[in-house]
């Protein structure tokens, strides 16, 4: 792990655990295997690798899933350019999930573990879903516990931990013959070493040729957040569907965020499904964030992570899926091939491109242009249903 690794790893663990336990209704998930190649490229960072998910049910009551995920990271992001050298690393994660269906109740258990050379994360999660009201409603409650270990490659003394608790509530509701609504809440409480040990803040130093110097960032050791999301799927008068999601987020670091998503799915014939989607996101900065502090040790908590700054992003994507019946192989019902492409654009309101003043003596620190970058994301996967 280097500058962005710790954060990526933790989030990877969260995302992969979703694979094991996400469900819309209290039913055993279908048997399937997915093999995906993923690629992210943008902002000086390239990440790609495989993800393999296998799920198998037994006696219509039990289901077991396993996921193996790899990130091959090559990073020369703006954070790396400012204070470090380009690096490469590999991150792997494995997760297991168990589901048990009893009448209209679905119990789910999951375990996941992530490893890289200077960060380890493991988590346990549990959830229960119950169908009721003529199966029009599905209520879900979940809890997760995560334990991370944080190291630093060039500092053998650093050996920190993070404890995480997630509390989730979900409601999926059939509203009409053509509309499904979902409501999700998640409260998260973290305690421990929450900042990235490699990242630094910058402060004004008139004596320095660049007019600024760097010092280690310091985060609070606790963080509590709340997120609530409302989503809907609407079946249109012809065979196509609209997807809408909105999320509001707030935490005790002062970050408030809004997310909106709109998607459209359109089958073409019996085998092809085309999809297009748009996503908007904005957030306010954390209270202890500053692009340029007035002096060294200006305050107790200080951060210059662009993820904690004020910014907005737009994403647009398309996806094409081709399905086919498989009759030649026993036990295999069908297969599909999907290719997805997303273009992301991030525009920061108070995070400046410090490399400009670093490389140009005519531009003072604090006068650089605001940073912005674009990224492309590709997903290509084959799904087998049996």
């Amino acid at each position, binding site marked *: 792990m280097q500058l962005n690794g710790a954060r990526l790893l933790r989030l990877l663990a969260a995302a992969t655990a979703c694979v094991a336990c996400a469900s819309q209704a209290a039913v055993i998930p279908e048997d399937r295997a997915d093999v995906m190649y993923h690629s992210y490229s943008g902002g000086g960072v390239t990440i790609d690798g495989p*993800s393999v998910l296998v799920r198998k049910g037994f006696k219509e009551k039990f289901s077991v899933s396993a996921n193996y995920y790899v990130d091959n990271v090559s990073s020369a992001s703006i954070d790396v350019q400012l204070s470090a050298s380009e690096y490469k690393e590999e991150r792997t994660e494995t997760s297991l999930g168990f589901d048990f269906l009893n009448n209209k109740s679905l119990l789910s258990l999951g375990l996941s573990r992530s490893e890289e050379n200077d960060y380890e994360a493991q988590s346990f999660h549990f959830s229960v879903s119950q169908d009721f009201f003529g199966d029009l409603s599905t209520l879900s409650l979940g809890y997760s516990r995560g334990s991370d270990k944080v190291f630093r490659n060039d500092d053998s003394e650093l050996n920190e931990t993070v404890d995480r*608790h997630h509390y989730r509530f*979900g409601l999926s509701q059939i509203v009409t013959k053509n509309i499904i609504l979902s409501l999700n809440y*998640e409260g998260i409480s973290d305690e421990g070493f929450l900042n990235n040990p490699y990242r630094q803040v910058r402060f004004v130093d008139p004596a320095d040729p660049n007019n600024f110097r760097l010092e280690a960032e310091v985060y609070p050791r606790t963080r509590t957040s709340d997120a609530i999301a409302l989503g809907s799927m609407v079946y249109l008068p012809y*065979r196509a569907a609209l997807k809408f999601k909105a999320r509001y987020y707030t935490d005790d670091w002062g970050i408030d965020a809004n997310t909106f998503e709109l998607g459209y799915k359109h089958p073409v014939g019996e085998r092809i499904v085309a999809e297009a989607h748009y996503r908007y996101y904005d957030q306010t900065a954390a209270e202890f964030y500053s692009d340029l502090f007035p002096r060294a040790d200006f305050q107790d908590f200080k951060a210059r992570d662009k*993820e904690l700054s004020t910014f907005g992003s737009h994403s647009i994507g398309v996806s094409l899926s081709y399905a086919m019946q498989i009759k030649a192989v026993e036990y295999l019902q069908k297969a599909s091939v999907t290719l997805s492409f997303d273009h992301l654009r991030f525009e920061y309101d108070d995070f400046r491109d410090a490399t400009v003043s670093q490389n140009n003596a005519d531009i003072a620190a604090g006068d650089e242009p605001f940073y912005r970058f674009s990224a492309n994301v590709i997903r290509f996967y084959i799904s087998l249903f049996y």
Partner: protein
Amino acid sequence: MQRLNKLLALTLFTLCSACSSMEPWVKPYERDHLADPIMQFDAAPVSAAYMHHVYQAREGARGAEGGTGGGCGCN
């Protein structure tokens, strides 16, 4: 946080109150559109989980982005 909790409690109370005095209004034989695969929020879990990861790694917000019950103990 208190505001969110109140909103959540109010939503639950309203839903429970409404459900206690009503019959299911969409019969099982009327759910063919709802059962269509295109009505799934996320058709492929492995793909959806990856996109959540892409966004979470670059944004301050976290949580409540999966299906009901999604998520894990580490952000």
